[in-house]
């Protein structure tokens, strides 16, 4: 019963599948043993693996599926096919891209106490619940993939000094890896994507002073403007924040205004550069096309794809500091 399965690209267009099988010991601890096999198809690789594993092999508990970046560049549909077909795999299963070789990641000892699959699942789960990772899972990947004005995205995992870390967000053009954004960009990306009520943002003020603002609830609204021939979209972002750290001695009202302004600037700058990247690569992870579709009669996908790279997308942000902790200063 593997909880995590990984896929690498192997020679001659083959797929290498790696499974971290949990081993339950008598003292109630769990460890892992990894198995690998190579084949042209996923199901056949699994069949080959059966020859090595004594116990029955079922993927009903699969919680994380990892794909190497090389594989993702060729497209994921081929490899996702058996999972989508299988009635036993949960639609909540997380998918992630690995920077490097998946096999190396699964074979390393990044998890001391827990089973590796559970560890990875909780890592991703936690970052979605209290971090900056936008919500993704098997269902949502499929949703964006099959939607006309939307492209999927997946978290990137990376092995770093025997630790696994989330290194950013992989952006897809249809099912093929197209580009990635780093953690800082991912924070802003999530703000633009959905309503969030957690997450922290570092604000650089002048002369080497910094403040940290915690998000206490942000709302994002898309608005349509322009004509149907030349649509424009405005992304309106409202953040209620609390100051949790300030590197100066005293926090005045003026400082608060300044922090608000700087954070707005930062978000708009990053947001604009993100939009620029998306439009140049013709990818639409925010689902702006889907939004425009829902507001346009007789929407035409081909026409939209011509419009998208050159269209105007405005980002407006307004930050409102509502709390500053339990001290007055």
């Amino acid at each position, binding site marked *: 019963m593997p909880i995590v399965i990984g896929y690498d690209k192997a020679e001659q267009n083959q797929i290498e599948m790696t499974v971290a099988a949990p081993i339950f010991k008598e003292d109630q601890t769990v460890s892992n043993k990894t198995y690998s096999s190579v084949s042209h198809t996923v199901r056949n690789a699994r069949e080959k693996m059966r020859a090595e594993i004594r116990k029955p092999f079922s993927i009903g508990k699969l919680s994380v599926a990892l794909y190497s970046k090389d594989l993702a560049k060729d497209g994921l549909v081929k490899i996702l096919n058996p999972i989508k077909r299988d009635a*036993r795999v949960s639609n909540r299963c997380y998918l992630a891209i690995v920077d490097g070789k998946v096999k190396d990641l699964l074979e390393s000892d990044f998890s001391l106490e827990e089973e590796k699959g559970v560890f990875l699942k909780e890592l991703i789960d936690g970052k979605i619940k209290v971090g900056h990772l936008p919500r993704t899972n098997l269902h949502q990947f499929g949703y964006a993939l099959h939607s006309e004005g939307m492209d999927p995205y997946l978290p990137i995992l990376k092995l770093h000094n025997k630790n696994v870390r989330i290194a950013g967000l992989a952006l897809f053009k249809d099912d093929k890896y197209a580009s990635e954004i780093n953690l800082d960009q991912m924070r802003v990306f999530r703000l633009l994507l959905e309503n969030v009520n957690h997450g922290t943002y570092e604000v650089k003020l002048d002369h080497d002073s910094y403040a940290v603002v915690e998000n206490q609830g942000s709302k994002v609204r898309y608005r349509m403007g322009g004509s149907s021939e030349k649509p424009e979209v405005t992304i309106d972002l409202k953040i209620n924040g609390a100051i949790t750290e300030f590197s100066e001695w005293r926090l005045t009202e003026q400082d608060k205004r300044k922090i608000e302004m700087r954070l707005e600037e930062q978000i708009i700058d990053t947001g604009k550069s993100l939009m620029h990247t998306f439009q140049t690569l013709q990818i639409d992870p925010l689902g702006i096309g889907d939004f425009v579709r829902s507001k346009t*009669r007789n929407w035409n996908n081909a026409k939209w794809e011509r419009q998208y790279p050159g269209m105007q997308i405005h980002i407006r942000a307004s930050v409102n500091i509502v709390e500053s902790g339990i001290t007055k200063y």
Partner: protein
Amino acid sequence: MDRGAAYRFFIIYLVMFAGIILRSFIETIQVWIFPQLQTWLLGFVLLVLAYYIVLGGFRVIVGICLLSCVHYILLPTYGFLTNYLHFSNLTPILEHSITDLFKASKQMSFSFLGVEILLICYPFIKKPKQSQKWVHAASFTLTLFYLSLVIFSLAFYSRGQLLNEEWPTLTLFKFIRLPFIERFEFVGVSFNLFRVLPILCLAIWAASRATKILFAVRQSKVVPLFLLMVFIMICLLPNRQSIDAGISFMSTIGCYLVYAYIPFLFVLHLFRKKERNPI
């Protein structure tokens, strides 16, 4: 119009209807829970159960029908999906042409079939006039239920995804995870039994009742025959394609039966009544 021919057609239609309902239920069990399950085995067990219920008479069947309300308790589980609903999928409203809407209604009519059984049950209803409002209420509830299912499914899946999904409403259950049950779709799939069994019993009962009126035979004599026919029918539908073909065939026939033939009979009836009682 030959009264016998209409009855005979109706009897065959009801038996086939029972068969296709049972077969598609067994198929979901095979795909979702037990891939190795033999069709005839589960079919046999359920038909024996249906035999027992149908012999119990109309009251027992009505009691079983009440059980079908049980599946409404699954409705709140859709609350788990709230984070994933995209209501923007519903807009822009009314983008489709009338012919599109008509085609869709014809496709969906299978879910609404079964009302025609009312024609046969009617003499068994104690106070038909007073019961009428309950029938309308039931029809309204069911329509509302289907509407909510459709809205949930449209908001949950993107267009392309919905096209690829074989059982969208069952796949919805794949998303629900409770602390004590990881695979909620098992519950969802099994709960369909409560929807299938009443229809099965009611259709077989109605068919046997019609036979009784037509040929003056005892109802309990023909029930085993019909059950055997259903049994043979489900064994003859081996795979997805044949079941799909069966469903679309039944839904075409049913659609014409409910929306064309029965209204036609009604008009004919009005006409004759006038003829018989000239003022």
